[in-house]
C-alpha cells in the first residue's frame, strides 16, 4: 500500500472516530457519576436533527452544534429525573430514551420538511487549516487541516483527563460514581453531581449527533447514528473509563470503519456487508478478550437513596 492510501485511511479513521469519541465521552462523564446511560443512540439522534435544523435555518453550523447540545440536554433530563429522582432502572430507562428520542426527531423532521420531497442539504462546517503546520508532509493534512470540531473533540479528551486527575471538583465527581455514600458523608452533593453528569452527557451526546449532520453528512436521515451510541458504550469499557483510553478505543473503531470502507471499494467479489461487520465484530472480540469483570466505577448503575430506612 502506498503512503497515500495509508494516509487517507488514517484520515478517514480520525473522521469516523470523532463523532464516536464525542458520544463515548458523554458516556464517560455519565458513568463517572455512576449513571449508566444506554440512551446515547437516542440522544445523538435528537442532537443530529437539532444540529441539522438550526444549521438549515440559520446557515451557521455553530448554531447547529449548540442546538444539538441543548436538545441532548433536554432529552437527557427526562432520563436524569427518572433514574436519579425516581430511582428507575438505568438500563430500562436508557432503552425508553432510545425509543422516544428518535421518534421525536423523525416526527419533527417530517413536520418541518414533509415526507418524501427533495433532499434537504446544508453546507458542512469548514475546515480550519493551521498555518505552517498543515504543510508538514503526510501528517499535515491529517492533524492540522480539520474542522474545529475535530480539534475540540480531542481537546475535550485533554480537558477530561485534567479535570478528573488534577482538580478537586473532578475528584469529588469521580467519588460519586465510586462510593456515593462516602462522598455524601463528606458533604458532597451526590444528587447534584448526578444531575450535572446527565447534563454533560446529554450535551456531549447531542453534539456528537450534531457533528454527524453538520460536519459529516450534509443531511439528516433516520438511523443516521447507526449504532454509534452502542459502540460508544463498548468504547468506554474498552478504554477503561479513562479519557485517553476511550480516545484510543474510538480511534480503533474509527480505523475499523475506515478499513471496511476501503476494503469495500477495493475487493470485488466478497459481499461488502462482510466488511461492514468489522466494527461490530471487533467490538465483540475486543470485549471478549479484555473481559469486563470488576472494572469501572464501583457504584455504576446503582440507585442512590438519601436516607435508608
Amino acid at each position: 500500500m502506498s503512503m497515500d492510501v495509508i494516509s487517507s485511511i488514517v484520515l478517514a479513521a480520525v473522521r469516523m472516530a470523532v463523532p464516536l469519541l464525542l458520544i463515548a465521552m458523554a458516556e464517560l462523564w455519565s458513568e463517572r457519576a455512576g449513571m449508566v446511560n444506554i440512551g446515547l443512540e437516542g440522544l445523538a439522534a435528537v442532537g443530529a436533527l437539532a444540529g441539522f435544523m438550526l444549521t438549515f435555518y440559520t446557515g451557521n453550523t455553530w448554531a447547529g452544534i449548540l442546538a444539538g447540545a441543548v436538545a441532548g440536554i433536554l432529552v437527557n433530563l427526562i432520563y436524569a429525573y427518572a433514574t436519579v429522582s425516581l430511582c428507575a432502572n438505568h438500563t430500562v430507562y436508557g432503552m425508553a430514551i432510545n425509543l422516544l428520542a428518535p421518534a421525536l426527531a423523525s416526527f419533527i423532521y417530517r413536520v418541518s420538511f414533509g415526507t418524501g420531497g427533495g433532499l434537504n442539504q446544508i453546507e458542512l462546517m469548514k475546515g480550519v487549516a493551521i498555518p505552517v503546520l498543515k504543510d508538514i508532509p503526510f501528517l499535515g493534512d491529517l492533524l492540522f487541516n480539520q474542522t474545529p470540531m475535530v480539534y475540540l473533540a480531542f481537546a475535550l479528551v485533554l480537558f477530561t483527563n485534567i479535570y478528573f486527575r488534577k482538580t478537586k471538583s473532578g475528584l469529588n465527581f469521580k467519588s460519586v460514581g465510586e462510593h456515593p455514600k462516602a462522598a455524601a458523608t463528606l458533604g458532597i452533593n451526590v444528587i447534584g453531581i448526578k444531575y450535572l453528569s446527565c447534563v454533560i452527557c446529554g450535551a456531549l451526546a447531542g453534539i456528537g449527533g450534531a457533528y454527524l449532520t453538520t460536519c459529516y453528512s450534509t443531511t439528516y436521515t433516520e438511523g443516521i447514528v447507526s449504532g454509534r451510541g452502542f459502540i460508544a458504550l463498548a468504547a468506554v469499557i474498552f478504554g477503561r473509563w479513562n479519557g485517553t483510553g476511550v480516545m484510543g478505543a474510538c480511534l480503533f473503531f474509527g480505523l475499523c470503519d475506515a478499513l471496511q470502507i476501503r476494503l469495500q471499494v477495493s475487493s470485488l467479489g466478497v459481499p461488502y456487508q462482510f466488511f461492514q461487520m468489522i466494527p461490530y465484530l471487533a467490538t465483540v472480540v475486543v470485549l471478549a478478550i479484555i473481559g469486563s469483570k470488576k472494572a469501572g466505577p464501583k457504584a455504576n448503575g446503582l440507585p442512590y437513596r438519601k436516607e435508608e430506612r
Partner: protein
Amino acid sequence: MEELMRMEHISKRFGNFYANKDVNLTVYRGEVLTLLGENGAGKSTLMNILIGLYQPTEGKIYLNGKEERIDSPGQAVKLGIGMVHQHFMLVEAQTVFDNIILGDKRSKGIFINRAARRKEILELSERYGLDVELDAKITEISVGAQQRVEILKALYHGAELLILDEPTAALTDIEVEGLFAIMNKLKSEGKSVIFISHKMREVLHISDRITILRAGEVITTVNCSETDGQKLANLMIGRELTKSQYEKKEVSGEPVVKLEDVRYNETNKHNGLAGVSMEIRPGEIVGIAGVDGNGQTQLAQLITGVIGPEKGHVHLAGSKVSTFDPFDFIESGVAHVPEDRNLQGLIGDMSIADNLVLKSTETDQFSHGKGLFLKKKDINSYAEELVQKYDIRCTSIDQAVRSLSGGNQQKVILAREIESEPDLLVVVHPTRGLDIGATRFVHDQMIAARERGVGILLISADFDEVLEMSDRILVIFEGQFMGEFSGKNPPIQEISLAMTGK
C-alpha cells in the same frame, strides 16, 4: 473540663418505633467517651443524628455551648465532627491521598495543590502517629491502615470530635494497641473521641467515661475508674445474665455433619477458616460464640455447600462430600437459615406462598409430574397452614415477602427450612433485629426441632442467645476454635475471654 458537645433530649422515631428516646449525652474536650450497648440499643442511630445523616424527631445539639442544626453530613464536617464508620467510607479505586482530600473545602483554587496538601497531611500524620502510605490504593493496604486513613481524613477535615464505630472489630491485637496509642495521642492534643464498642476489656482500657444505652435510652454514665466489667455487663443487658430456661442435653450417635481440619481463605483472619474440626450429632444444638467476622460466615456457607473448602474434608451423614453445591446439600437434608435473610434467604418480590415452597416445587405434594404442573391450590393451602403454625403476621399469603417485617420474614424462612424435615439445620443470627416475642418464637421452634432429632448449628453474635440455646458451645476466633464448652452451666468468664482470643 470544658464541654465540647452536648445532646439534649434527643429522640428519633421511625414509624411507631423509637430508636432513641430522650437521650442526653455530653462529651468534654480531650476525653474518650464510650457508648456501650447491645446490638439495636440505638448507638448507630444516635451517631447518625450527630453526623447529620438523620434528623432527630426531637431534641437539640450544642457544640461549644452553641445550639447547632446539623442538617447534612457536610454541616457536621464543617462543625468539626468526624466519624469513622464500621464499614469504612473509602473509595477503593483511589489512592490514600485522594481519599483524604476528597470533598476538601478548606483550600482555595480549582486544582489540587498536591505538594501543599501532602505537606499538611504528613504533618498531621506525624503529629498523631498515623502512619500511612499516601500513594497506595486503598485496596492495597491493610484494614488497620485503612482505619488510619479514615482517622487522618477526619482530622484533615478539621474534626474536633471523632466518632469511632466499633473500630476494633476488624483489627488484630497489635493493630488494636496501635489504635489505642493513636486515641491517647488524640486526647493529649485536645481532641475528643466517642468510642463505640462492646468489647469490655477494651472499653475498660481506653475510656474515661462510659455511657450505657439500652433500648434507645441512656441508662447511666459512669466513670471508667469506678466500674468493672461485670457491673457494665449487667447495666448493658439490664439484668443478671439469666440461666437458660431450656433444658440442656448431651447426645451420642452418628454425627450428621463432621468437619476435618477445614481450611478456607486461611490467611484472612476475618473471612477465613484456619483448620476447623467439629461435629454435630442428631438432637443437639451446637452454638458458635464469637465476635462477628471471625470466620462464622464462611463456616455456615461451608456446611451448607455454598462454598467449598480449600483443604480438609466435610462428611455429611457419614459420607465424604466431593462436590460443594447447595443443591446437593439440600438433597442430603441440610437446611439453612442464612445470615442475610433478604439477600440470601428470600426472593423478596415473590409471595409468601412462593417463598414457603421455594425448594420443593418439584415434589409430588406441590406439582404433577415432577414440576410439570404446579398444584397452586395445594401450595396455597399449605402456605395458609404454615402461616398459622408459624404465626406469620401478614394480610395474605399473596403478599410479597419484602413487605413483611424482619421478624415475619425470618419466620417464613424458618418455616420453610424446618418443614423440609432436615437432619441438619444451620441457623445464622436467627433473631437479629427481632423483637422479644418473635425471638422467643424462633427459639421455641429451634428447640422443638432439636427434640425431633435435628442437629442444629447456631451461629450468633448475640452471646446471650448462644448461652441460652446451646447444648455445646464452640468459641471461634480468627478462623479457629478456641475451645469447647458444655452448654450446662457454661463458664461465662472463660468463654468471653476465649472470644477475644485468649
